[in-house]
C-alpha cells in the first residue's frame, strides 16, 4: 500500500512537471543580427550599364523565399550628389531567384560611388568605391630597336592597382607567348604615376623552350600587346586576399576597366650584339 502511494505521488509530480516545462520550444536558427545583405558588383568603366547582385542573407534557398526581396537600393555619385533608386532584374537559376540591380548609366573614372541597401525596418548596409582613373597609357619610345628600353606610363594612378599581361607572337615553331601577371602601382607617395620599363629583347628571351635565343627579328608581328586591368583602390587586394572572413566575403564591390596597349618595335637586326655568336 505504501509502495502504491509512493508510485502515485511520483507519477503526479512528473505529470505536473510536464505542464511546467512544456512551454517555450521555439528555435531561432538564423542569426538575423549579424548578416543582412550580400552585395556583389564590379563596375566596369567600359560598359554602358552595370549590374549589382543584392541578396537577403536571411532568406533560405527556396523559390518562395527568394521571389521577393525586401531591399531598396540607392546608387549615389558622392562627388556630384547624384542619387538614383535602382530597379532590379530577376535571374532564375538553381531553383531560386536572384536580384540584379541595374545601374543604367556609364561609370565615370576617378569618382566616388556608393550603394546603400536599406531594409524596410531601417537596417541598411553600404558599400563604396573610388573608381580608377582612366589615363591613356603612353609608351615611349616606340618603333625602336630591340635593345632600346621602353617605358609605359599611366598618369595618374593614385592608389589604384594595374594588373597586366604581355603577349606577342614569335615565329614557328614557338607558340604565342603570354607573360605575367605583372602588378603596377604608383611610383611613390609624391609621384602618382605608374611606370613599367622593359627592353623588348628581354621579353623575347622569355619565350618558353627557346633557350633565350629569340630576338625581335623572330617576331611574327612587330609589336607587343599589353592587356591590362585597372582596379579601383583596394579592389585588387580584396579579390586576392589570402585569409577568409565570412562576413567580409559577402561584400564584394569595386570598379575596374580593361584595355589593351600595343607597343610596336623595330624588328630589324641589331648588330652588335646579335651578329656576334659565341661558339659552343
Amino acid at each position, binding site marked *: 500500500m505504501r509502495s502504491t502511494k509512493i*508510485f502515485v505521488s511520483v507519477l503526479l509530480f512528473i505529470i505536473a512537471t510536464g505542464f511546467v516545462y512544456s512551454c517555450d520550444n521555439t528555435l531561432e536558427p538564423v542569426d538575423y543580427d549579424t548578416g543582412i545583405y550580400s552585395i556583389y558588383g564590379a563596375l566596369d568603366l567600359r560598359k554602358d550599364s552595370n549590374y549589382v547582385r543584392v*541578396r537577403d*542573407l536571411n532568406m533560405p*534557398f527556396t523559390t518562395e523565399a527568394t521571389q521577393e526581396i525586401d531591399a531598396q537600393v540607392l546608387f549615389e555619385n558622392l562627388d556630384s550628389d547624384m542619387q538614383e533608386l535602382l530597379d532590379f532584374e530577376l535571374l532564375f537559376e538553381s531553383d531560386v531567384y536572384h536580384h540584379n540591380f541595374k545601374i543604367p548609366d556609364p561609370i565615370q573614372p576617378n569618382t566616388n560611388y556608393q550603394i546603400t541597401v536599406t531594409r524596410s525596418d531601417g537596417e541598411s548596409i553600404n558599400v563604396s568605391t573610388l573608381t580608377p582613373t582612366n589615363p591613356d597609357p603612353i609608351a615611349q619610345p616606340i618603333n625602336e630597336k630591340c635593345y632600346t628600353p621602353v617605358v609605359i606610363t599611366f598618369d595618374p594612378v593614385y592608389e589604384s592597382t594595374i594588373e597586366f599581361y604581355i603577349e606577342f607572337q614569335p615565329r614557328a615553331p614557338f607558340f604565342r607567348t603570354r607573360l605575367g601577371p605583372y602588378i603596377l602601382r604608383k611610383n611613390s607617395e609624391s609621384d602618382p604615376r605608374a611606370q613599367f620599363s622593359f627592353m623588348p629583347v628581354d621579353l623575347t628571351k622569355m619565350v618558353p623552350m627557346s633557350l633565350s635565343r629569340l630576338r625581335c627579328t623572330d617576331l611574327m608581328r612587330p609589336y607587343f600587346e599589353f592587356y591590362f586591368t585597372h582596379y579601383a583602390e583596394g579592389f585588387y587586394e580584396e579579390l586576392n586576399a589570402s585569409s577568409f572572413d565570412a562576413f567580409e566575403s559577402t561584400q*564584394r564591390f569595386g570598379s575596374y576597366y580593361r584595355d589593351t596597349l600595343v607597343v610596336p618595335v623595330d624588328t630589324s637586326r641589331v648588330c652588335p650584339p646579335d651578329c656576334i655568336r659565341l661558339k659552343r
Partner: protein
Amino acid sequence: MTDSQIKKNSLCYLYCFRVWFILALIILFSAVPDKTYSQDALIRTVVISSEDGSPMVGANVLIYSSGQNSELLYNCVTNPTGFCEIRRITPETELELRISYVGFSAHSEIFVLEPDERRTIRVELETEVGALEDEAVVIGDRVVTTGRAGVQRVSSDDIARIPTPGVDGDLVSFLQTEPGIVTTGDRGGDLYIRGGTPDQNLVLVDNLPVVKPFHVSNLFSAFSEEVVQNADVYAGGHGAEFSNAMSAVIDISLRPGNFRQYSGSGAVSPYMVSLHAEGPVIRDRQSFMVMARRSTIQSIAPTLINEEVPLDFGDFIARYTLRFDNMSCNATALYTKDSGEVIPTRKIRSEWSNTVFGTKCLAYDTGLKYPLEIWAGYSGYNNSERSDTEQERYSSLNQIYLNASLREQISKVSINYGFGVNFRFYDVLLSEKFADIRSVNRIIPIMSLYVSGNWEISEKFEIQPGLATQFSVDHAGGLEPRLRMAWKPDGTDRQELSIAMGKYVQMFAGVSDQRDVGAVFTVLQPIKLADKVPYSYHGILSYEQWIGRSLKINVEGYARSYTNIPVSKWTPEARIRIETANAKGLSYGFDGRMQVQRGKFFSSIGYGWSNISYEATSGDLGAWIEEPVFEFSPAHDQRHKLNAVLGYEILGFETNIRWELGSGKPYTQIFGYDFAVNVPIQDPDEDSGTARTLFSRPFGETLPYYHRLDFSVGREFMVMDGWNLSTEGGIINTYDRNNIYNFDINTLQRVDQTPFFPYLSIKLSAL
C-alpha cells in the same frame, strides 16, 4: 632514406623491442615456479541452472571452514560463463563449499583437496519456490573490475523496465536513462558518454568489437532484453584489458541458448517484428540461440501518427555455445542494417551496417595451471550517405583480430595479462558536388598488450593497477597506465568509495560534421603518419551507499582531458572535408543516482551535470574566427540531464514509466544564405554564383529543453500449456512535446523527434 621512412624504421625497431620485452615477461612469469605456494590447491566451479542448463552469472561461491564456528575463508563470483576460480586453498583441510543465487536453492558440500590438486566442480542449482524480495541481484563481471567508479552493471531486468514500442526492452533505451550518456535525439544511433564521441567508444559483444550496433531509431539497438545476459558499461576509467577506446566501453554478454528445452517466440508491434528460437543441440553440452528483427515503422507511421518516419532497420543475432568438461566455447554472429532519412527534408539517406562473427573459448583444464581465454573473429562496418541518384560519401572499417588472455597468481595478487593483434582495413570515399574526389585505402595492423593486477590488500581495501600499450606500423601509442582502487569502510558491500584513473590512447579517429546537429555520417580513418596519436586522461571518484535493504545512493564526479582530437575544418558550406584540425578537449561533471527496490515497486532517479569544451587554434579551424585560440562547446554538451524510471506491478500488470528532462545542446546559428558571385570574372546578370550556407559563431546558441515521458503497461497470459502471450501497451512522448532534433539549414524547416506515439505490442512464446 626519407624522414618518414626513418621514422617508420624507428617505430618498427621500437615495436619489435617492446614485443620481445613483453613476451619475455610473460615467459618469466610462466617459468618462475610458485615455490612458496606450490602445495596449495585450487578449485574451479561451473554453476548452471537446472531449469535450462544455462550458466548462472553472479552466483556466490563461498568456502567456509567446516565445523560449528565456520568462518568464511574464500569467495568468488561466477562470470558470464558460470565459471569462477579460487586459488591458494590450503590442502588436506576439510572445507565447506556453498553456492547460492537469488531465487535458487543453495548448494553445499564438504570437500578436501590434495596438495597441488586442481579440481573442477560442476553444480546445478534448483529453482527455489517463492522468490526472495528486496534483495539486490549480484551481477558477475566478465572482466575483474575493482570498485564501482565509472562502472554500471546492467542486467536484462534493468533493460526490461524501460518502455519501448516493442514487447522486449532494449539496451540502448536503458543506456539513455543513465546520467552522462547523451544522444542527439531519437535517431542517429550515436551515444556520447561523458563528453566522448561515438567513435571513442568500444562496444563488445561476447568480446567481439562492433562499431555501431545502435539503430537509426535510437529506441532500438541490436541488443534486446531477450538476447542480453548482462552488460558492463564503463563510462571511463576502464581497465587495461580494454584498449583503443578513449571514452567508454560497453561490454555485452549474450545469453547462451537453452541447454535443456526448445523455445521460441514471435512478436509484433508498430515499430518492428521479431522472431527468436533457441534450444539444445546436445543436451547440456551444446545450444543455439537466434533472433531476427525487422522494423515496420516506415510503413505503419503514416496511418498511426499521420507522419512519415523514413527509418528502416533490422538485425540478426546468433550464438552457438559448446560446453565441455574443462572448456566452454561460443561462436557468435551479428548483422545489423540501418537506412533512413535522418533529416527528411534533405532527401539524403544515411545507411550503415555491421557484420560480426567470431569465436571465444575459455579453457580451464586441470592440466592448465591457469585459465586461458582466446577469441578471434571478423568485424565489418560501413556507413554512407546517398541522394536519390548517387552515393555521396562512404567509409568502412573491417577488422580481423586474435586475442588471448591469461591469469597468474603472485602472492596475494592475481595478475591478468594478454595480447591482441588486429588488422584494420580502412576505406574512405568522399564524392562531393564542388570538391575533388578524395579517398583513403589502407591496412593498419595494431598489436596490443596489457597486464593488470588485482590486489586485496585487506578486506576493506583493494587496488587494481594496470598497464596497456599498443602500436602499429605508423605509431606507437606509448604506455597507458591504469589504476582502480576501492575502499569499503565497514568491510562490506554496503558502502564503497572508489577511484579510477588512467591514460587512454586511440589509434584511429572518427570525423563527422560537428557543426551539424543531425550529422550521422562519420569518416573512420587511421591517424596520419605526420599527426600525433589522440589520447585522454580520466579521473573518477565515486561513492556508493546502501541505506537499509532497498535504497542505494551513488554519487560520482569525473574529469577528462582529451588531446589531439581531430575535428573537421570549418568551411562556409556544411559538408564533410577529410582535412582535420587537432583540438584539445576537457569534460568534467558529476552524476547522482538514487535507486529504490521495495517489493513490487522500483524507482531510479538520476541527475547528471557536465561541461564539455574543445579548444583549437583558430587558424587551424578556419580563418574566419577572430580569436587566435578558439574555445567552444561541441554539439553533445548537454549541461543538465534528469532521468526517472519507475516500475510497479499491480494485479498482474507491470507498469513502467520513463521520464527525462534535459537542457538543450549547443548548435551553430546560420549567419546567412548566400550565392557568392566571383566578380569581376563572373557577371551577376549571367551567373547565379556558388551557393553557400554561412555559419555564425560556432555553437553559439542552445537548442530548447528536451522533455519526454514514456509509459507502458504490460501483462502476461498463459494461453495454453507451453504457450505464453505477452502484451504491452504504451505511449512514447506522452506530453506530445515537439522536442527538436534538427533543422534543415537550407530550408529552415524544423525536424522534431518522435511525437505522441501510442503502441500495442504482442509476443507469443512457446516454451
